[in-house]
């Protein structure tokens, strides 16, 4: 019976119910989108690193996390090539433009040999020093086509669009980039291909002896760095966003239930006259809150598919993953925020004087 009352109460004010559900949905979708984008971007970076076809990756001694500096002499590449089991080694040059954009200089022949080749979908490969190719994701996001120009710390002409999935989204000739950015003879990373991936651990140990201060990782170890746990600021940022989301849910539910309690003052008086205990009355509001939170969570999860579509359209370089393993967690977060939000209105309803409530118009 109490469930019917709860359901009918929510149905009685459809706009308020709908707004509450949407607000909780936004709270849920905010969290799921942030987590999904964090994971999506990192997974994408990991997949593109694997797309190089390399088994081992060498970075300069001052590299941190999974970033690259520009302090490695290109002669190191020749040294690496002389090691047993090394079939290929190629240096790349990464120039960071800003937090979201970089341009990667490659030796095209070497890179193609190692990765299986950049597949040109439109236009042609770069030839002149101020030409670059971009992948299809980057091209879509920045509305580029062969012949377009783009400004990445220099005005480049896009000579072609390549298939995504190999190392970077923007490629230019390494020598041209080294000259342009005054880093002649320097590389950011060396990718190493072995005769047999089974030799990775042994070759890595040998390379570490030859290049003791350098950061040398198997590609598998390197891509394992692309997790949310390895990026402290993402975890902190996620916590902040969860806090804000919970606050939104709390405020909306608190306001919604507070107005419901005010509006139902007489009804609360009726229930008290019928012998309803404070616990019974709080129970009604809590059930309504739980129902709002559950519905809001479902709506929020569905909205996440919408945000993924929006991200794919407007920020394709930041792919969003759907994160089902977060559904229960986010439901708990939404539920907790909502229940805390309903506490004050619930206590106010429970403490309502029956006679005053019955006299309320």
């Amino acid at each position: 019976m109490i469930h019917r009352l709860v359901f009918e109460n929510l149905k009685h004010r459809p706009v308020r119910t709908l707004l509450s559900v949407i607000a909780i949905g936004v709270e849920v979708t905010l969290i799921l989108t942030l987590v999904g984008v964090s994971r999506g971007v990192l997974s994408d970076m990991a997949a593109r690193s694997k797309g190089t076809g390399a088994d081992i990756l060498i970075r300069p001694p001052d590299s941190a996390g999974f970033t690259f500096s520009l302090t490695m002499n290109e002669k190191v590449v020749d040294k690496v090539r002389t090691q047993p089991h090394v079939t290929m080694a190629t240096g790349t040059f990464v120039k960071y433009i800003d937090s979201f954009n970089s341009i990667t200089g490659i030796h095209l022949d070497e890179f193609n040999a190692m990765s299986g080749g950049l597949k040109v979908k439109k236009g042609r490969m770069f030839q002149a020093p101020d030409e670059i190719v971009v992948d299809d994701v980057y091209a879509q996001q920045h509305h580029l086509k062969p012949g377009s120009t783009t400004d990445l710390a220099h005005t480049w002409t896009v000579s072609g669009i390549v298939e995504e999935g190999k190392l970077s989204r923007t490629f230019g000739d390494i020598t041209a980039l080294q000259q342009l950015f005054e880093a002649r003879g320097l590389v950011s990373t060396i990718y190493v291909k072995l005769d047999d991936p089974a030799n990775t651990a042994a070759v890595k140990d040998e390379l570490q002896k030859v290049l003791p201060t350098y950061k040398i990782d198997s590609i598998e170890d390197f891509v394992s760095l692309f997790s949310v746990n390895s990026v402290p600021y993402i975890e902190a940022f996620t916590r902040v966003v969860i806090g804000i989301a919970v606050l939104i849910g709390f405020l909306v539910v608190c306001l919604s239930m507070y107005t419901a309690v005010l509006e139902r003052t007489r009804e609360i008086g009726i229930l008290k006259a019928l012998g309803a205990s404070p616990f019974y009355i709080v129970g009604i509001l809590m059930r309504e809150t739980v129902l709002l939170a559950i519905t809001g969570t479902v709506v929020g999860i569905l909205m996440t598919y919408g945000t993924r579509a929006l991200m794919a359209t407007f920020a394709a370089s930041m792919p969003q993953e759907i994160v089902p393993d977060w559904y229960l967690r986010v439901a708990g977060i939404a539920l907790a925020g909502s229940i805390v939000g309903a506490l004050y209105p619930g206590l106010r309803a429970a403490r309502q004087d029956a006679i005053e409530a019955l006299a309320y118009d």
Partner: protein
Amino acid sequence: MTEIEVQNLTKTYRVGEVEVHALRGVNLKIERGEFVAIVGPSGSGKSTLFHILGGLTPPTSGTVLLDGRDLIKMSEADRTRLRKTTVGFVFQKYNLLPTLTGADNIEIARDIAGTKKNGPDPQFEEILKLLGIASRLKHKPRALSGGEQQRIAIARALVNHPALLLADEPTGNLDTENSNAVLSILQGLNKRLGQTILMITHDPEAAAYADRTVTMRDGRVV
């Protein structure tokens, strides 16, 4: 057998810094199965007596024995239990829950009292027959006339078989025809089922349906 025994009952409210002596030593006895009307002008203390007997507010002093229990010694939780099991209310404004149907309004009183329907309840079936509302139970209050709403309110008040039915101006919002119908129902419940009823009213014609009339003035029975 005495259902209600009130002795030297006082009730003092505090409104801001002013003390209001709503009841100033009420003495009253109501026998089981009696239908008593309480009449009196506004401010005479009728409603306060109604609220105390219904366990909606505690008395200040005196003795109020209801079904053998003294209300003055009751805690808030005890009074809540009293409202669940011993007293049924009928109000002037019907006070049905607007979001529920007539049947659900009755059912929620059962739910609150924890007396879920287990099999037939012949006495309540007879009450429903007497009230003549069987065909209107599926409707929500907004689709019911005042008379129908009040009859459902009476059914709700009686569903848990309370020792005492308290009616506060039950015909105050009804036209003459519906007033007479509701009063006849109350009288029928009293005569046929022996329901003890205490009714507050301004209307002498309504009071005439009761077995006995008690007049109050200035917080006392006169």
